[in-house]
């Protein structure tokens, strides 16, 4: 089970109403390499992975939900006061027609989230390599969004999230090292 802390992992501040940036940012909400995909991927893989790395998948999967919540707060703040006209100009006319100001799990191009974004092969090495790739792809996505964003407050939060991707990738790489160790031998780190 989980306990919920009624605060964000890192503060989210937004300088100005900017629905176009929200349109790009939604990639990390409901995109293939977004936070929802990450959380569900790791928490689902836990059951069929060696005991030594289950805790890691639980911890990182849980943190991904904290990131998802930050992205949601960003998207909401960027769009909450936008008029239908502004949303239309930002390329969110179709989103408004379907969802009004509600958030929805789709990527920057409007493709709805699908379970085919996440894999569970059951092979521990295959699954952890996929997790490493997912972290690097999420890091790259944050870079591309930072490159397009001129909102310094928002970028501050995005840089924090990018750094977390690096730490997660590092931990998954260490998990691979643990699983590939020869058994019945002494190991010193």
């Amino acid at each position, binding site marked *: 089970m989980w306990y919920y802390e009624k605060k964000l992992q890192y503060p989210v501040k937004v300088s100005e109403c900017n629905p176009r940036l929200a349109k790009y940012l939604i990639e990390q909400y409901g995109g293939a390499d977004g936070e929802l995909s990450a959380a569900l991927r790791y928490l689902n893989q836990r059951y069929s992975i060696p005991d030594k790395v289950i805790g890691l998948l639980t911890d990182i999967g849980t943190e991904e939900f904290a990131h998802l919540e930050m992205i949601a707060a960003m998207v909401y703040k960027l769009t909450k006061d936008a008029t239908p006209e502004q949303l239309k100009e930002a390329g969110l006319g179709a989103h408004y027609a379907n969802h009004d100001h509600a958030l929805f799990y789709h990527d920057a191009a409007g493709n709805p989230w699908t379970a085919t974004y996440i894999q569970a092969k059951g092979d521990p090495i295959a699954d952890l390599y996929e997790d490493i790739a997912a972290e690097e792809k999420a890091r790259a996505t*944050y870079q591309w969004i930072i490159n397009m964003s001129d909102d310094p407050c928002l970028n501050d939060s995005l*840089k924090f999230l990018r*750094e977390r991707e690096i730490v997660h990738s590092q931990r998954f790489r260490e998990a691979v*090292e643990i699983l590939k160790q020869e058994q019945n031998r002494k190991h010193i780190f």
Partner: protein
Amino acid sequence: MNTPIKWYHPYASTADPCPPIEWKYYQTPPNLYLGFQPTGLPQYPLKEALYKGVLWPVLFDPYPTPIRGEDR
């Protein structure tokens, strides 16, 4: 210390429709080089670590990468 950016010079044809981008860059963050993290590495003060998103300077990778002196 490993460099956080690598670059290459992609081929450009005189027949390309757009002005060529002469150098292409990509990030190579510290997790690619660290291996299994050793214990006892230096740590940031707690408050700074919470803002940076990481406890250990060895894994901190600012983005965009700050430009220093002659470094590209």
